[in-house]
C-alpha cells in the first residue's frame, strides 16, 4: 500500500451527503496547490461524490480505499483552485 504525506486528515465519519464534500472543499481552501488531504468517511454516497467533486474542481484523487464500511480518500489539491 502506498503511503501519502497528507497535510491534513479530515474525519467526516457519520456525516451524510453533502457534508463530506462540503467539508473537504472548505479544508482544501486552506491548503496550497500540491498538498494532500486524507478524508475518512462512512457515507456510501461519498464513493461517487468524492471522485465527482475532485473532477469538477480539478483536484487529483490519488487513491480511494474501502474497508468495512469506511471509505478513505487521498486528494491532492489542484492548480488554480
Amino acid at each position, binding site marked *: 500500500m502506498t503511503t501519502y504525506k497528507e497535510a491534513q486528515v479530515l474525519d467526516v465519519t*457519520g*456525516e451524510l451527503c*453533502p*457534508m463530506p*464534500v*462540503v467539508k473537504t*472543499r472548505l479544508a482544501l481552501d486552506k491548503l496550497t496547490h500540491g498538498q494532500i488531504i486524507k478524508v475518512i468517511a462512512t457515507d456510501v454516497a461519498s464513493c461517487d461524490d468524492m471522485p465527482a*467533486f475532485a473532477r*469538477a474542481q480539478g483536484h487529483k484523487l490519488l487513491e480511494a480505499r474501502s474497508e468495512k464500511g469506511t471509505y478513505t480518500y487521498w486528494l491532492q489539491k489542484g492548480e488554480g*483552485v
Partner: protein
Amino acid sequence: MTTLGERIVLDAQTFNRLHAQSHKETDVRRLALVASKGTLDMAYPPLILATTAAAMGMEAGVFFTFYGLDILKKSKHNRLQVAPLGNPAAPLPVPNILGAIPGATAAATWVMNGMMRKQKMPTIGEFLALARQLNVRLIACTTTMGIMGVKKEDLLDGVELQGAAAFLEYASKAQVTLFV
C-alpha cells in the same frame, strides 16, 4: 495566424490561447434554483444542492419566492416547521388525520430536527452560513416581498433583491435549473 483561401490556419500559440479561453468559458458551470416553499422539509433540498454545487466550483444562485422567502427571514429561518397534515411522509408516526390536532406540527418539527441532529446535518441557519461562505447567491424575490410586506431589514445580511427578469437572465446561462 495565416489565411489559406477560406481556411484559417492558427499557429500553435494562438490555438492554445483560444482553446484555453473556450475551455475556460465552457468550464464555468452554473446552478440556478427556485425555492418556493417555506417548510423545514422543503428548505433543505435547495440549500444542500446549492452548497454542494458551490463546493464543486460551480456558480450557484437560489431565488427565494413566495413561502420560500421565509428561509431568508431573520426571524423565521431557524424556526421552519414541517406539517404532518397532507404530508404523509412527515416524520410523525401517527395517522394523517391526527396531523390536524394542535401540536402535531410542532411535534413533527421536533422529530425532524432531532433526526437531522442525530445524522450530524447542519441546521438551516448553518446551511445558510455555509452557502454564504461558498459565495452562493441568495436572491429574494421582490414581488413576494411586496405581496407579503417583507422589508429588506427582515432578511438576512448579504441577501440580494431581484425580480423575475434578472433571475431568468441568470438562469438562462445555467446548465442546471430546478424548481423546489
